């Protein structure tokens, strides 16, 4: 019995050592990144290319979730949770509600694009931008080592309430203004309200 077990141990350890020697951990992490990046980019393409605007909104939600997963991949789990909560849980819902409130009779073709020439011009602009970013990011030193910064929540909280407390308070006022503004815009102000 024991030599069957030690034979199995030998095989399993051999396979694991081989996988480590060809760099499997990095490969797996890279594979996870490419998977999530593919989800994000394909969903973003779906937002732009789909003809039904409800489908576009749902692909936008998928893109938000992909970006949130990328934040968690980068060890920024607080930022990932903020992304899920704000973008996936609130912004996406707002956009779908807006689509519901501005419904057209035919929903299946409610996301028109401009003419082909327009699209060609926009595609060229976008491609040139991508090319410039490619050259810039390739010509700078590669950085693959993550910075070890300590506890994220404590770090963000320390910064937000000491050094950046003014932007924090201004953001709070901005949210209040946005809420009041949205209510007034949507509800309308009539003469007898003033």
């Amino acid at each position, binding site marked *: 019995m024991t030599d069957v077990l030690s034979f199995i141990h030998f095989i*399993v350890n051999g396979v694991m050592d081989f996988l480590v020697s060809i760099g499997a951990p990095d490969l797996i992490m890279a594979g996870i990144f490419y998977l999530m990046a593919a989800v994000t980019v394909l969903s973003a393409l779906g937002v732009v290319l789909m003809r039904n605007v409800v489908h576009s909104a749902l692909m936008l*939600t998928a893109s938000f979730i992909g970006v949130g997963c990328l934040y968690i991949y980068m060890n920024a789990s607080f930022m990932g949770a903020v992304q899920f909560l704000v973008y*996936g849980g609130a912004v996406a819902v707002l956009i779908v509600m807006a689509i519901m409130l501005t419904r057209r009779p035919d929903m299946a073709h409610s996301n028109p694009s401009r003419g082909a020439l327009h699209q060609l011009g926009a595609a060229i602009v976008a491609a040139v931008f991508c090319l410039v970013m490619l050259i810039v990011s390739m010509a700078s030193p590669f950085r693959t080592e993550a910075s070890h910064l300590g506890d994220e929540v404590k770090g963000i909280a320390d910064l937000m309430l000491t050094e950046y407390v003014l932007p924090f308070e201004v953001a709070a006022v901005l949210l209040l203004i946005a809420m009041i503004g949205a209510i007034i815009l949507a509800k309308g102000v009539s003469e007898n309200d003033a």
Partner: protein
Amino acid sequence: METGIVMTVANLIRGILMLILGNEFIVSVIMKLIGIGAMIGVISFAAILFTYTERKVCAFIQVRLGPNRVGPRGLLQPIADMLKLMSKEDIIPYGVDRVVWALAPMVLFVPSALAYAFFPFDDGAIFADVNVGIFLLIAISSQSVLTFLMAGVASNSKYGMIGAMRAVATSLSYEAPMVFSLLGIVMITGSLRMSDIVAAQQNTVWFIVLQPIAFLIYLTTCFAETNRTPFDFVECESEIVAGAFTEYSGMRWALFFLAEYANLLSISVLTTTFFLGGWSGPILPGFVWFWLKTIFMLMIFLWIRWTFPRVRIDQMMSFGWKVLLPLALVNVLFTGVGIYINRFM
């Protein structure tokens, strides 16, 4: 330090696997897969058990007997329900948006099941003990709001649209008081980790004593978030047939049902973790205490469901925004003052 039952069993399984396979990493991977299987088993078992429990409790509260034909005392009723649902015809209504309509039940189940990865079942028995546990849990639970919209909008039915809009209004209105009521606990604990929250209640009092208002607010918002009476106008039969789920039949509806009961169990677990001390308790092992407290909270949820009438949607919205949210903010203020006094006196 002695560990609980779950970790002892897990270490036993890990020891056996190490004996067979002999490699740390593969054993860890297999243990994670076993953990996932255990969580899905818990969800399925809970769903099966709750169909029976809910109907029996409802019956006893309404002074009648409930299911008592299938099996002794009706204990095989869930199996009959499952067989019935599996054998129903899958009706696809005319004019639905096929892909979105079919995906909605599956996408609804994902956040409900994913939340189970953050629950502390026992000492050290959390599947993913991340630094931002409670926040990530809230963030993932908030993803289920959009799936109601998906189901309702794609259904090409007026009941579906109304139910979906009501579901979104409820969920969004009650998310803010829920998060602010949990903020009091996080302030006292000083950390967002789920295991820290349980550990902070282990040697001192439970948080229900320190934060009674937050407990009541959290209880109320749990009802709203899981669409149970008194906030179940989303799917009430007397008004909008079945709301967002009207056009689903058979196994698709069973998926919604499964998600709803998974949500019920998860709010029971979360209430015990946040307010009743999680798995900590004096004499019995942690695992037993955990399930005792969870079943206690579950019975309270069932009791309230079958006792109170349904509120109107405008009453619900005004209650959420005008009563619960200011109360939760006042609770946070008092908690902050109390912590300050406690720390510097």
